[in-house]
């Protein structure tokens, strides 16, 4: 890989069954490129958690992925309700997900801490009423 590759995905906020398609596609691409399996796994888990959050909390949005020779940069952008207290949201077990989401297998308040754990860099930019952008980097 000499230059960088950019991929863009639209994530529907309406269709829970399709959540994860973007993460799956990136996982395939990284595997094909021969990226080491540990890094592929980190990207897959971190991006999937973020993609699920965009669907269940953010009303869908857009994911921009840049694959560089030595790292991958992901920006998950939604125009949902935003996060009022990011430090609180980052705490394990904190969740505002309704019971209906829990019956689908999510909403334990583990996603954001898990994204932090599996990415090498993570920043959240959020404005209440405007939306949320989660920026993550995983080094290869």
């Amino acid at each position, binding site marked *: 890989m000499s230059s960088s590759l950019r991929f863009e995905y639209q994530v529907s906020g309406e269709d829970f069954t399709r959540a994860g398609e973007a993460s799956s596609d990136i*996982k395939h691409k990284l595997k094909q490129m021969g990226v080491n399996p540990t890094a592929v796994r980190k990207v897959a888990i971190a991006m999937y958690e973020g993609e699920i959050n965009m669907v269940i909390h953010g009303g869908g949005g857009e994911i921009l992925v840049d694959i560089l020779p030595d790292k991958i940069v992901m920006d998950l952008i939604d125009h949902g309700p935003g996060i009022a207290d990011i430090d609180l949201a980052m705490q394990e077990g904190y969740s505002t997900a309704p019971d209906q989401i829990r019956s*689908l297998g*999510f909403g*334990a308040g583990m996603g954001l801490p898990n994204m932090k754990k599996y990415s090498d860099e993570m920043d959240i930019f959020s404005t209440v009423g405007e939306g949320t952008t989660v920026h993550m980097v995983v080094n290869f």
Partner: protein
Amino acid sequence: MTLKEIRDLLKATLLTSTPDLSRTVHSAFSADMMSDVLAFVKDDCILITGLCNPQVMRTAEMLDLAAVIFVRGKKPDENMLRLAEDIGICVMVTDLTMFLTCGKLYSAGLDGVDGGAA
């Protein structure tokens, strides 16, 4: 244990065209919350669950799980099975409850995922 031994022990039905049932697995994790699966599963492992929706397959895909076992006869729909075939994951269904499924596999030597010790 091999996937074949697991299938026989649980009297499970294989739902995918898994080419290699002789594949060996060492540990298992059981949960209905995919959040917990994503947070706790570390290595090559199988998932035992009573939750039946496409995100179970996606979760298994992201974690490179060898197999998913649905308990209490919960049968994934065609869409989920197609997804499983694409991903290349082995899917089985057993009539046993979650407790009995876990108990039988644990007694037969399958390990848990550490993390509960603290």
